[in-house]
């Protein structure tokens, strides 16, 4: 009798009370497959950037809420800053502004001279990029990447690829743009490389981020003319970073007898962790960069005409 009951129980399906839909294992397999396919799509194709943008836009209020405590803290600090300190700071800033103004006066004459000389040599006239002031709202949340998030986005005409600098030097490049914020990848990130030039001897090279807070300059021969303390500036050959911005200083050079290349380590000069304000430089547009070339081409033609005229004049003079 008892045996029969057991058999009956075994034959039965699990009672509805215990039924929880598909088993966790099958769910796990399904969702793993789903996430792997999403990863593949995200890594190889660019379909999901819109999804990401929409989500970040929707998340913006929550983000503002999460940022609120630190914002309050900053404001309270500002509110209670001492009068004496403010006066001193004001004085120092005025002095700095005065010094900068004097330097700027010289700069403008030198710039005019440079433009003139370049036009004489039929060279391109460099364009001054416009810039937007932004503020770091927080560091990136992924500890594997070196990013900061800035409070300027596509609503402020920020585009991916723009160079980002602060008062000391280059910080990095805009990599993702959301409606109200954008993600700036620092030059120390492994994914980013930056064309540089050694200020002392104009040697060009490319610096790569190392993933920790340093830059690496590979593929330079062991006997290369670089010293510890050399300043690295942007070379401007990429068309993203304007030439002459400070990037890093060389801190260590290792010459290994086994390797034909020197191991050169440098640390960035820009202080991302020190202050919040930074400048997002506008990308040089392709059309605009073409304009000066055509202008110079016109100048060349004009000059040729002049030369021809002069020659003709000379000829006519000679014949006379």
């Amino acid at each position, binding site marked *: 009798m008892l045996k029969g009951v057991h058999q009956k129980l075994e034959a039965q399906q699990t009672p509805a009370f215990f039924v929880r839909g598909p088993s966790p294992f099958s769910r796990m397999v399904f*969702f793993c497959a789903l996430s792997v396919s999403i990863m593949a799509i995200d890594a190889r194709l660019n379909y999901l950037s819109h999804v990401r943008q929409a989500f970040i836009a929707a998340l913006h209020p929550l983000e503002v809420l999460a940022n609120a405590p630190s914002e309050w803290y900053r404001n309270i600090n500002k509110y209670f800053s001492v009068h004496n300190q403010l006066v001193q700071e004001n004085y120092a800033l005025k002095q700095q502004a005065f010094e900068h103004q004097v330097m700027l006066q010289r700069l403008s004459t030198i710039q005019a001279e440079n433009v003139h000389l370049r036009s004489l040599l039929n060279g391109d006239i460099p364009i001054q990029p416009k810039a937007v002031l932004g503020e770091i709202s927080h560091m990136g949340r*992924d500890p594997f990447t070196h990013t900061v998030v800035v409070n300027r986005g596509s609503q402020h005409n920020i585009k991916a690829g723009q160079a980002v600098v602060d008062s000391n030097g280059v910080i990095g490049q805009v990599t993702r743009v959301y409606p109200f914020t954008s993600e700036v990848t620092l030059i120390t990130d492994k994914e980013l490389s930056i064309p540089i030039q050694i200020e002392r001897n104009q040697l060009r090279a490319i610096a790569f981020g190392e993933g920790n807070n340093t830059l690496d300059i590979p593929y330079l021969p062991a006997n290369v003319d670089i010293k510890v303390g050399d300043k690295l500036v942007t070379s401007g050959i990429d068309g993203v970073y304007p030439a002459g911005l400070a990037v890093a200083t060389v801190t260590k050079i290792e010459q290994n007898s086994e390797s034909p290349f020197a191991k050169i380590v440098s640390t960035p000069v820009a202080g991302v962790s020190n202050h919040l304000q930074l400048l997002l430089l506008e990308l040089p547009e392709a059309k605009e960069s073409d304009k000066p070339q055509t202008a110079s081409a016109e100048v060349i033609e004009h000059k040729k005409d002049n030369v021809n005229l002069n020659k003709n004049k000379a000829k006519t003079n000679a014949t006379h």
Partner: protein
Amino acid sequence: MRHTSLVTVYLTFLIAMLCQLFPWVGQGIIFRPDFMLVVLLYWLLRAPNICNVGTAWFAGLLVDLATGSLLGQHALSFSITAFVALSYQRRLVLFNSWQLTGYVFALLIIERVIILLLKLFEGNENPGWHYFWPIVTGLLLWQLMTLMFGELTRPKTK
């Protein structure tokens, strides 16, 4: 099974998300516990009728979107961890609180290791031992969760 309201569960998820979005600076990001994961594990073990592998997947996807990492990484690691967590869920009543803490510790390690593997495949460098700090802080957060919402283990009989 004790009754847990749906509102409590989703409210804690929202708070966890807020903590995740909090602007962590400098050393903070090293020690930051994985808020979403700990909250998720707690509700998975406490109320498996509300939370499931699917919930874990969605929570992971939200974390991916918020952190800006490759979409699907945390979704994958959360689903696998949720599966492991659920497979022993019915035996939890036999555990004492130390064993339960050990179990959660193991789950947190599993999640971290999966993320580490995915990141290494992606071409990132080995981040070093400090990468595992969130496990320790996550355990502290777990203790906080049990303080706030009650122990998972069987209450001691006299």
